[in-house]
């Protein structure tokens, strides 16, 4: 029997901010080439989970393994090497205002000294084309782009270095339904092209149904359910039912109602 090492493995991951426990004990495994979508309400700890994996936030406890290698307590140089396996699409795009679009896309290639500027530009233009943007967009400034175009550029940047793992943070937030579907399609195609493992966090159920192989739900800092996308409607969990159907009534109480 083959023992496949999970691409990402979280065990007992804990993160607090002062007295507020955001992640209580997160256990999650994402296998190679799997597309895992993490769902959960606002403030449930989805983004914090991603930031802990990337080392942008320091976990208070537990274990984070990438390809079996422990990330907590790792040296900066080792972390940098592991981070080169990642690409990420940020919620707001997080494009660098001071650089033209093509340099944004090619930033990782240039930072890792993988290519000279001319070759990096060529790859950037090709990636822009891959996400449906014409080469002349490359010379524009990010401020000149619409929200949907910024997401596409962010996606092109995320896949530019052919990463092994891609994180998508709320990829469709702020987009109209048609553009959301376009972005979802692009994510599925690009992840397949690159052959990457994908972790997406969202509360957009149409994204979940389009992107996911497996789904995990976070509630109160714990994973309360995980399973294949096609089982989500028969999960048997009242929490999942309430969330996917967007009902105000149910076991999940919004913080605003507690006071």
């Amino acid at each position, binding site marked *: 029997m083959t023992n496949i090492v999970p691409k990402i493995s979280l065990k007992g991951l804990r993160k607090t901010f002062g007295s507020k426990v955001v992640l209580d004990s997160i256990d999650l495994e994402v296998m190679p080439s799997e597309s895992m979508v993490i769902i959960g309400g606002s403030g449930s700890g989805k983004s914090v989970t991603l930031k802990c994996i990337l080392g*942008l936030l320091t976990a208070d406890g537990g274990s984070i393994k990438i390809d079996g290698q422990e990330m907590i307590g790792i040296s900066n140089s080792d972390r940098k090497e592991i981070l080169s396996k990642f690409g990420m699409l940020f919620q707001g795009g997080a494009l660098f205002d001071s650089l033209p679009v093509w340099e944004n896309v090619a930033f990782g290639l240039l930072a890792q000294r993988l290519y000279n500027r001319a070759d990096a530009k060529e790859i950037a233009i090709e990636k822009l084309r891959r996400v449906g943007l014409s080469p002349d967009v490359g010379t524009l400034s990010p401020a000149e782009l619409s929200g949907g175009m910024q997401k596409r550029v962010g996606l092109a940047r995320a896949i530019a270095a052919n990463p092994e793992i891609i994180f998508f943070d709320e990829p469709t937030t702020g987009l109209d339904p048609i553009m959301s579907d376009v972005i979802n399609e692009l994510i599925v195609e690009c992840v397949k092209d690159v052959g990457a493992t994908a972790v997406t966090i969202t509360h957009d159920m149409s994204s979940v149904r389009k992107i996911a192989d497996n789904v995990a739900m976070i509630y109160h800092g714990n994973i309360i359910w995980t399973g294949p996308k096609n089982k989500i409607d028969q999960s048997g969990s009242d929490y999942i039912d309430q969330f996917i159907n967007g009902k105000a009534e149910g076991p999940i109480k919004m913080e605003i109602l507690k006071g």
Partner: protein
Amino acid sequence: MNFLAVIGRVAISFLRAAGRIGLFAVSAIAHMLTPPYYPRELFRQMINIGYYSLPVVGLTTLFTGAALAVNIYEGSSRFNAESTLPTIVVIGIVRELGPTLCGLIVAGRVSASMAAELGTMRVTEQIDALVTLSTDPFKYLIAPRILATLIMMPLMLVVVADTIGVLGGYLLATSKLGFNSGNYMKSTIDFLETIDVMASLTKATVFGFFIALMGCYHGFNTRGGAQGVGISTTNAVVSACIMILLSNYVVTELFYSS
């Protein structure tokens, strides 16, 4: 008792902030000295900090030099010592007003701009994006800004501020106060000593360090949204100005106390 507790809390929070800034400075210097280097980013910052600050620095010191000449002429004429004007203008400008005014103006322009830019990058996750793109934000954002300010403050801005400040005094004295051009220049050159220029350039370097450090520290540690960026920008300018005035006294003491 409560009053003492308040004093204690303020003291602890001040020391904590000083410690954090100290660690930030050490880390910034360490990153400045070790590769990878970003020469394009350094050049961009040098242009932004040095070249684009020239007009405001030049105008300020030109008028200050002229005003200084008027004041000294009026004061010295009370005891028939008008001939000391060129000497006092050059010493006043080079030792004190050139570097200090230049520092304060550049603090307003550059510290604010660094804090606002880095703060916006922080709240829009651009700094997080740098990390995910295998780029150390300290090396890419902080080191070039501090190094560029350290280079441009003494080598361009304060040299220009001193020169134009003295020129302002010269133009006013020769055009309005009846000074002979050749005599004015001779007095200026004769009484300017190497130590005055050294003090001016040292001040410029120290001020440049604090201007960039405060802008970068407050911008990099911005929290919240637009309000957080505003707070960081204000804190950067205020703390840079305080550090400039404080270090001005310390450097002056080091150079001139006998």
